[in-house]
């Protein structure tokens, strides 16, 4: 164990990269989620179809396949990006596709009376979406967004396979240099776990803060109900 302490700075460097991936990836994923989610709801098939195809392709394959494709195959089509940028882009596109379905689902599940009231009051489609439907849908989006956030965080580890020097990559390097296999991996697992817990609690706090139903605010967070996993496939 003591030999790992020497290498702690390397692990720390890796952890910083992992946290950068988390912050940049989730910010970009949020933008993609709203763009693709709203795009897929468009009545115009020329707009709707590309977004639907994007969402289904990114949800239908796993992130590691997308990473490999973007890192190894894409240069053959003339686009060569540094590994870190590939990592951020794929994280954001992959989790953004999952989150887009959350956005779409939450907005679609608003009572039709809201839309009808807007029509009756002569509120146009853009204002209706921006001022009425989206703000109302945010509380319903938060719990599944929390799961996507934790998934995104866990998936940052995959960038180690395309040579990004993240926390996992540094862990493997330290293992090779010290031979302290068990200690290194326990360190990795515990740190990843603790950060996941922080993210879970953060999202729980947001959920209570933005709950429409005020009584919900009073109830304490239930740890076991926290992470409905991002779940699989279509319609999860």
């Amino acid at each position: 164990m003591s030999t790992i302490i020497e290498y702690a700075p390397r692990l720390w460097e890796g952890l910083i990269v992992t946290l950068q991936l988390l912050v940049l990836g989730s910010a970009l994923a949020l933008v993609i989620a709203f763009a693709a989610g709203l795009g897929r709801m468009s009545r115009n098939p020329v707009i709707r179809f590309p977004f639907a195809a994007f969402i289904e392709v990114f949800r239908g394959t796993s992130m590691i396949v997308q990473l490999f494709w973007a890192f190894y195959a894409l240069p053959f089509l003339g686009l060569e990006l540094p590994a870190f940028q590939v990592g951020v882009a794929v994280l954001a596109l992959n989790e953004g596709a999952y989150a887009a379905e959350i956005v779409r689902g939450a907005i679609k599940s608003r009572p039709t009376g809201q839309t009808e009231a807007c029509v009756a009051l002569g509120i146009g489609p853009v204002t209706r979406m921006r001022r009425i439907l989206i703000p109302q849908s945010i509380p319903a989006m938060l719990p599944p967004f929390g799961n996507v956030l934790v998934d995104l965080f866990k998936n940052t580890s995959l960038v180690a396979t395309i040579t990004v020097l993240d926390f996992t990559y540094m862990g493997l390097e330290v293992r090779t240099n010290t031979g302290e296999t068990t200690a290194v991996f326990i360190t990795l697992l515990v740190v990843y776990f603790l950060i996941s817990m922080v993210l879970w609690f953060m999202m729980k706090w947001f959920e209570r803060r933005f709950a429409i139903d005020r009584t919900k605010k009073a109830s304490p967070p239930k740890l076991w109900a926290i992470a409905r996993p991002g779940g699989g496939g279509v319609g999860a």
Partner: protein
Amino acid sequence: MTWDTDFAISILPRLLQGLWITIQATMAGIAIALALGLIVAVIRYMRVPVLSQVLGFYVLFVRGTPLLVQAYAAFFILPTFGIVLGPLLTGIIVLGVNYSAYTAEVYRSGIEDVAKGQWEAATALSLPARPTWTRIVLPQAVRSIVPMLGNYWIQMFKDSAILSAITVSELLYVGQTIGADQYRYLEPLTIVGVLFLAVSYPAAVLIRRLERRLAISR
């Protein structure tokens, strides 16, 4: 240097072999996840002192850590304790254990959805614990969660590509190997993506249909 169809066709048989390994790993992995998840869910529901709490932490911990790191940990740590299983078997166990934490939560939601009257009726008829579970509670619990378990199956199928990192010769690993040998990544990795999509998308559509059918008949 762009798409070469002849090359793509020539590597297809090897990639399909990789897909077969992927499917085998997923089948074995889901079998472990379904069995282990059920055991975890039932023990947690019965509130066995200490054991239930330990399993609760197990579920939380497995879900809070990346599958890739779990796979590396198992792959590198087990041999230091003299347990040598080979990449495929290690990978299957990691997949199964990882997903058991998710299926346990699914089972739990199914068990909690079973009406309380069912338990009370079983008690009133002094039905022993075992048939209460196997004949009354679980059959009703499982029905409503079949689509959710199906979605995890698809998710596991996609996630199994992560096992390429511990040298399991599944689909992505084969694609990656061909790419490195020939220095042509475009065709193998594109086919890998298409093959994953070709299995997971129809499966997802089927699950969605199943979900609708089970929902209506309730």
